[in-house]
């Protein structure tokens, strides 16, 4: 009996899947606070190396540029644990809601 009810409910419901990479991109459910791709704002960074110290997967490397010390991120190693964002004193690192984080080349995955 309940199976028949289930059947009719599913018949009128329409399909549950979306043609994601080709169509309906906006229909992808992305929750608030998703730990997605890392974003870095150079102008806020003070080069304190806190992100380097807490990173569990060696994503962060400290380098020098014209303005002084700064991190470089190897995104292919990132586990999206958000510890760098948590410790950053100036909010220079942010985990955005962007969930597409793929590349065919490791060099493309470096965030300067």
């Amino acid at each position, binding site marked *: 009996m309940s199976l028949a009810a289930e059947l009719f409910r599913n018949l009128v419901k329409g399909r549950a899947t979306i043609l994601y990479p080709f169509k309906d991109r906006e229909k992808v459910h992305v929750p608030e606070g*998703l*730990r997605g791709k890392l974003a870095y704002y150079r102008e806020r960074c003070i080069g304190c190396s806190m992100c380097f110290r*807490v990173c569990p997967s060696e994503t962060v490397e400290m380098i020098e540029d014209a303005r002084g010390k700064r991190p470089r991120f190897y995104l292919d190693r990132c586990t999206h*644990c*958000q*510890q760098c964002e948590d410790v950053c004193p100036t909010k220079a690192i942010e985990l955005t809601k962007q969930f597409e984080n793929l590349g065919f080349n490791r060099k493309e995955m470096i965030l300067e």
Partner: protein
Amino acid sequence: MSVTTFKVPVGPQHPALKEPENFTFTVEGESIVKAEVRVGYAHKGIEKLMESKTYLQNIPLVERICGICNTAHTICYTQNVEYLYDKAPPRRAEYLRVLIEELNRIHSHLLWLGVVGHEVGFDTLFMYVWRDREIILDLIEALTGNRVSMSFTTIGGTRRDISPQIESKMRKGMDILEERTEYYKRTVPVDPTILARSKEVGILTPEEAVQLCAVGPMRRASTLRDDVRSDDPYAAHDEVPFNVISYDTCDFYARIMVRVDETLEAINQVRYCLDHMPTGPIRIRLPNTPPIAEAVSKVEAPRGEDMHYVRSNGTDKPARYKVRAPTLANLAPLLQTMTSRGKYEVNVADIPVLLAGIDPCMCCMDRSVRFVEPSKGKTWVWTMEQLKKYTRKSVRRPLSGNVAGR
């Protein structure tokens, strides 16, 4: 007439096993007279790796000991490190920990119920349960930002707070889940497919459960009422009320019912946590280096009692870390349930069902390394000194540089 026995190897690669483990069953006709297990195929080296990372860096690593019960392992780890400092997290954080732990338990038990439906040949149940599991995964995602690896707990508290929107969403989700779980509770005892495959299958008597140190739902299905949450309360479990579930049929059916009832209890615990959540901070800041000490912490994971041991040496990295995952404790009882004894007979066809009965998570469990020479049937364990000596003798060139270097 003489009876011939055969040895049937199952695994490490086998369709009935989800993870690589090797079982050898000695069969007489259809009935299994002896079951043996060989573990160690999924050794990940997590304990050693933990000694080279700081306490904060270890949190995401501990989480990856087990994918399904990751919250139990993180709570156990963070609690353990807090014991080293001899500091307790704020009360609100403890309530949030109970909340996320019970959400995790609902998710794990529903996943298991689906697997059982699949193993006993009742795929409709599998589809139903896994559809309902999406509700709980969405709630976890809304709260923590990820569906499975939650990264919610940290040393000194939790990392995120619960907002009123998520709270109301969670209450609605719990209502639906309660209704669905009640439905499964009504379905399981009357469904002929499940009953035929589960009643009086995999008997583990209470005496055997005590002798072989069964833990978790496996133990509680054998009439024993042992649960870390009530025996040795941690986090906010001393305030959050719940009933310890136990069944007295001691078979696979009891294991199903224990988990279904525990899901209902977990739903009530989540509601209690939402109703009685104290206000205040969610985290205290602790220094990077804990004092020299050692600590043991226990957590009731969905699969049973999970135990962690830590020893600090005055640096920001642990000197030794030991994890005893629940599946390891449940292996000996599993072999017992798979052995025919007296009037109780186990058939080869019961193997997948019985294996699913302990909710196995083999790669959480593989901790130690044992050397085996299968041709001679010889096994031995080496100490670190012996291993170093052997390595120096057999490796001609000296190891140099960073092996995993960039």
